[in-house]
């Protein structure tokens, strides 16, 4: 991530900010997808995050933490949308069939993520995909480092256990 870009964005340089977002949007999409299933919800969360970042970027103290800061905002927005959707389902007593995006989850290695619960998924995504350190993940999720490690360990065990079964059957990863 270009620190110079962040500094320019802090000074209300729109082009710099747009470039920053374009650099980060794939990461944002992946993270949002670990929490939200529907494309529309993912789009809402990303849009809200971009607007929040644009409005508040001036208040951010250290440019090197832009990514951590942005991911925290994104996860908060995703959680907020997730909670609202859950309420809607409960209030209307409608059991919505989970509309999983075919293009996304038909990729087998992503299917493995479905064995994990939401908390484990986000930790795996941040650690293995986004390459955040344990300390940074703890900071983003506002939990302890031991909790992050615990979730990673549990996730790894679940993946391995399920993967072993698949392997013995002639796994896709074989």
């Amino acid at each position, binding site marked *: 991530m270009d620190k110079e870009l962040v500094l320019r964005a802090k000074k209300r340089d*729109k082009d710099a*900010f*747009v470039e920053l*977002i374009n650099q980060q*949007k*794939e990461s944002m*999409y*992946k993270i949002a997808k670990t929490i939200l299933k529907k*494309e*529309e919800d*993912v*789009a*809402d969360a*990303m*849009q809200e995050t*971009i*607007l929040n970042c*644009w*409005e508040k970027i001036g208040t951010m103290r250290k440019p090197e933490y832009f990514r951590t800061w942005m991911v925290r905002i994104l996860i908060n927005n995703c959680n907020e949308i997730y909670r609202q959707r859950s309420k809607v389902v409960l209030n209307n007593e409608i059991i919505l069939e989970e509309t999983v*995006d075919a*293009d*996304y989850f038909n*990729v*087998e*290695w*992503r299917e*493995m*993520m479905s064995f994990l619960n939401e908390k484990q998924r986000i930790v*795996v*995504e941040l650690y*293995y*995909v986004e390459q955040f350190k344990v300390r940074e993940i703890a900071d983003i999720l506002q939990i302890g480092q031991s909790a992050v490690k615990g979730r990673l360990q549990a996730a*790894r065990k679940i*993946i*391995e256990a399920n*993967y*072993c079964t698949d*392997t013995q059957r002639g*796994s896709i*990863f074989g």
Partner: protein
Amino acid sequence: MERKGIIMKNFDDFVNGLNQDITISDSVNQRIDETLQGLETRRKHNFRFLKAATVAACVLLAFGAVLVSSSVFASDLPVIGGIFEKGQNKVKYSIKVEKDSMYADVIPSGIMKNVGAMFQKQVRMSMKYYDKYKDADDYTRISKIPDKYRDFIDIAKEIRDSDEIVIRYPFYVYYPGEENYYGSIYDYYFIAEKNQQKLCIFCISVNAEEEKVRTQFIYDKMLDHYFSLDENITEETLFYEVDRSIYAETPEKSFLVREIYSPPAEYIMQGDGMYDDAESSQFYQKNYEEKKDLILSYLKAVKKGKTMKKSGGDIKSELKKADEPINEEDLLDFSMGYGEDEDTLGEKELDDVIYLAVCVAVFCILVIVTVMYIRKHRQD
């Protein structure tokens, strides 16, 4: 070992798989592009909203300040007028006591010092009863509002924040021979003026008939209405009652200020001397200076007496106490408005608490609505 190696290898494969590039769907991409293009508009929109909110808040604040400072105007407003109508009854008017009669020196200093505070308390309590029962029927008003406040409500209602109240011309209506027969109740009269116009006549009565000396504010509507003070009162005007009429007398002339109705039958029948025509006639024959000496000497003696010393302490303790709460009991059933408040003095004034609670509630609602509005706009 072999199993572990396989697992580790495959988990790495899994991680590698997760790290493969993915294609963001068109719908999400489109939304991101739209958002990025509309950044400036959004920011301007927010600024515009903030500006509008700031201007609205300033206008609201200014409007509120005007209403608070001019509760008379505010009380006429629909819907919210009721809140300010209460507010306008708080003591904000100025009050001054003038010692502009020869009686001022012979009236107990405790009364002269505290008559202003007693007047304010009377206004305050009368308005509290008025606020509570203004929409009630006549029977309820008569049965619930003590006499001492009921009559005074008409006076208290006339007083506004901006008014200047001056209490002046203290005087005493002397009954010939009262030092011999009637020396336990002393009524000291005052004239209250509002903005240089006569507002009312009231008296501070000191009653030493019972063990405890009791000082109270008394307003007699009949006396006030029929007390003709068309003639100018001067510093030297004397007041006395002769032949069932009250007279005012200056060195130059004497004139009738109020014709009193017939004496109560029991006084005539018992012949207690109160309406001793011979004594009255004798007094009336005296010249101005003789009358003045007699009255002032008598009042000086009264002032120095134990009763008045006790009275000073009673006034102070009464004024230190908080206003008595509005009596909910039906006065007609028991006391006809007399002796209704002694036991309840000093309790917390409920009306003030309710008034404060209403103001706080209105303020909180405004804050909540504003916050919700801002949050909604930010989400939009």
